[in-house]
């Protein structure tokens, strides 16, 4: 009882990366709390799904398998979690800050009167002292998240209500298998005990899901452009550099808003969090919300004609100059010097 729960998203029979990242984080939190980690998978045709989650250190896997549960709709998934959580009384419940988790989480937290913190960038365990009430709490979940457009970071806690719920964006936590042979227990839920017919009121008429070809999260090198690149055509040069050195192209929110690049390339708190081996920031001034999404890159090069651009303070190499001048030279000298 009072374990840590992770709701796992599933698309085409594959557990989402964001959920595997949460299982990885959840395992280490559960170890710290000396409790078990339980996972919930809701969908259809789930035979064998445990093979995807047990290696991350899941002790108990709850499965709700019914063809009406896939694709995701709000009420049936919410009904299952609400009833399951009411019975199992988790101390912590985590889900992805995706269009699924952010649709489902608030519904569940409202029904259970529990606190929910959206879009956390870090989760830690720690104590809390409420001086006014003279109460001391041990082992609370610190839900750490940016607020006010990324200008501040807030530590949120839920002292009294359970579960302590949080959503986390994809790419923020690291995904790591604990033990390929880890063995947990399966608990098959009888769907009819959890979901009423009336919960299926909303029907999906059409669904067009594209497998995104752009994958800035997993690229070891990112060439990223900001508003300073100036135009969509200016980005062509970034693609040329990226192709030359085997990189992917990213963009700042300002560049995406200006239409220079597609949203799938956006780096930052409202886009994707990345931690490549090398991040080349081209004409990016470095708004807080952008830096928060790439500061863990192993090496950062900033190309900017403003020597005082905020991003320069976190860069390992700063090139003072115009993107349009510097990039062609980088391409040229890479070609001259490689192999």
């Amino acid at each position, binding site marked *: 009882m009072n374990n840590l729960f992770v709701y796992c998203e599933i698309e085409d029979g594959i557990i989402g990366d964001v959920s595997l990242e949460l299982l990885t984080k959840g395992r280490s939190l559960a170890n710290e709390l000396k409790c078990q980690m339980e996972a919930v998978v809701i969908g259809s045709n789930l035979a064998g799904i445990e093979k995807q989650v047990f290696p991350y250190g899941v002790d108990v896997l709850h499965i709700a398998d019914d063809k009406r549960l896939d*694709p995701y709709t*709000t*009420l049936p998934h*919410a009904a299952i979690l609400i009833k399951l959580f009411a019975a199992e009384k988790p101390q912590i419940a985590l889900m992805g800050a*995706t*269009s699924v988790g*952010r*649709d489902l989480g*608030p*519904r569940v937290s*409202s029904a259970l*009167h529990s*606190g*929910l*913190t*959206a879009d956390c960038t870090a989760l830690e365990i720690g104590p809390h002292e409420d001086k006014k009430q003279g109460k001391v709490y041990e082992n609370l979940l*610190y*839900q750490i998240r940016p*607020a*006010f*457009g990324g200008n*501040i*970071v807030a*530590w*949120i*806690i*839920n002292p*009294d209500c359970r579960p302590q719920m949080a959503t986390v964006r994809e790419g923020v936590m690291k995904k790591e298998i604990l033990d390929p042979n880890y063995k947990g227990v399966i608990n098959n839920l009888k769907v009819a005990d959890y979901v009423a017919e009336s919960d299926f009121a*909303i*029907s*999906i*008429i*059409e*669904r067009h*899901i594209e*497998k995104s070809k752009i994958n800035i999260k997993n690229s070891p*090198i990112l060439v990223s452009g900001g508003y300073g690149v100036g135009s969509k055509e200016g980005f062509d040069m970034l693609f040329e550099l990226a192709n030359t*050195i085997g990189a992917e192209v990213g963009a700042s929110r300002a560049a995406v808003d200006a239409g220079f690049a597609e949203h799938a390339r956006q780096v930052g708190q*409202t886009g994707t969090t990345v931690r490549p081996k*090398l991040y080349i920031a081209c004409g990016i001034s470095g708004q*807080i919300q952008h830096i928060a999404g790439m500061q863990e890159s192993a*090496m950062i090069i*900033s190309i900017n004609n403003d*020597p005082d651009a905020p991003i*320069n*303070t*976190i*860069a*390992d*190499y*700063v*090139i003072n*100059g115009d993107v349009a001048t*510097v990039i062609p*030279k*980088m391409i040229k*000298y*890479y070609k001259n*010097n*490689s192999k």
Partner: protein
Amino acid sequence: MCNISKGIITFVAPFFQMKRHAKHLNHSYMSLNILVLAKQVPDTRNVGKDAMTPEGTVNRAALAAIFNPEDLNALEQALRLKDKNPGTTVTVLTMGPFRAAEIIRESLYRGADRGYVLSDRAFAGSDTLATSYALSCAIRKMDKIDLIICGRQAIDGDTAQVGPQVGEKLGMNQITYAEDIQLISKNKVRVKRRIEKGVEILEGPLPMVVTVNGSAPDCRPRNARLLMKYKYARIPNELQAADEDYTKLYSSREFLQIGEWSVNDIVAVPEELGLSGSPTKVKRIESVVFQAKESKTFTDSDTEIEGLIQELISNHTIG
């Protein structure tokens, strides 16, 4: 179909009449009571240097108060439904300080029919759950609402929680991340929603809560005629500060009265409101400071760039 006998044809005429009649009736049934939830927020997207105090807290006074962007997308969806379904009314509800009446005025200028400001010190310190509870208590006070539309999230917190939580408290269905809402029969809507990797078209019965994505069409601009009409619309609290002429105008033109509700106007359990009704607490806040690094600086000269590239190749960062 080909063997239509005389008898059937004679039957068809009154059937058509009936259908026309039904269509007429249907028309009046298609009118909706729509409620838009909107929030006044500090403009966190345009943060100046003085937006943070030296102590690292937010200097709210330095940030302009604006109509939450996605709530404007939500208002537009409501107004489009009103355009297509005559007789539909659009009510706007906002919770906040008295100055949030500006949100109602901006909505009236664009075509909303009426608005309410829910304002009380008892709501101070509310997290999303306590906010949703207060809003749901206010909504229960209203005439039957068919459709609640709000922005997906507000730019001060980016939580996207209030819409779904209001839906849960009122026992309504919900669809989030919407880009387009169509009424397809008396009590059914079809909603296009934009999710990470694509689009879904959903259908479901009213009443329902729909949260609207920023990718939905922008809100129409203020209408000049409505701007003239509602320019002096005020909540009672604002009027107390106004001069006498103003009060006269107000009492003779009822449409200038914006509803103002306090905690006494709704039926709510006091412990569920404000700080005591909020499961989440802020333990601490820090301003964001990034770890500055020792950086090497280069010019854009050929020699220096070639030097850098050689260094990156030799330490296996690239190549």
